[in-house]
């Protein structure tokens, strides 16, 4: 019944992974990776593992992305995104 949705989600995962590999822009790569983690969280729900879903949403899409963004800021990749 929901196999169709699951296959679409998995296809999204692969698309995100390929997207990360081929974007030249780091900022976009990190955002795509965030999306990847969020989709992963939904997939955990389909696999009947709510524990993993809640963890992945908090860690993969939350803290991991914050860490990546902070690193991008530290390596001066986000210069010009904030005026002043």
């Amino acid at each position, binding site marked *: 019944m929901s196999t169709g949705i*699951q*296959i679409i989600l*998995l296809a999204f*995962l*692969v698309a995100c*992974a*390929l997207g*990360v*590999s081929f974007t030249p822009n*780091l900022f976009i*790569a*990190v955002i795509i*990776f965030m999306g*990847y*983690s969020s989709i*992963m969280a939904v*997939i*955990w729900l389909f*696999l*009947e*593992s*709510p*524990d*993993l879903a809640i*963890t*992945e949403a908090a*860690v*993969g899409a939350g*803290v*991991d992305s914050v*860490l*990546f963004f*902070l*690193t*991008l800021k*530290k*390596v001066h990749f986000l210069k010009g995104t904030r005026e002043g």
Partner: protein
Amino acid sequence: MNHLETNFYEAVSVILFGIGFMNLLLQNNLIKKFIGLNIMDTAIYLFLAAQGYIFGRVAPILTDGVIDASYYINPVPAGLVLTGIVVSVSITAFSLALVQRLYKHYGSLNMDEIMRLSREEEGE
């Protein structure tokens, strides 16, 4: 035994692992390398969790007071993956901190460039 169509979760996770692996080998940019590593890890977790799923059963949390093993899915892979996720976030944090330190000194995120600079520094 041909289960490639039914095992689509495993198949996708294997493809993801391959993509992550390719990223790790091919990307010169350290941040992308580590994103590739993360993709690789999550692919393994997907693989592992797919081993535990059973059609028509529910999540391993007591529902409606039913104590019967044929009502819930296998809890073992979920537990292992939970451990794995923790390990991978710790490693991500560690590696990003390393990236910052490297950038501070070499002013570059390119692994080849950094290797070259460090070799130049070393060989007088």
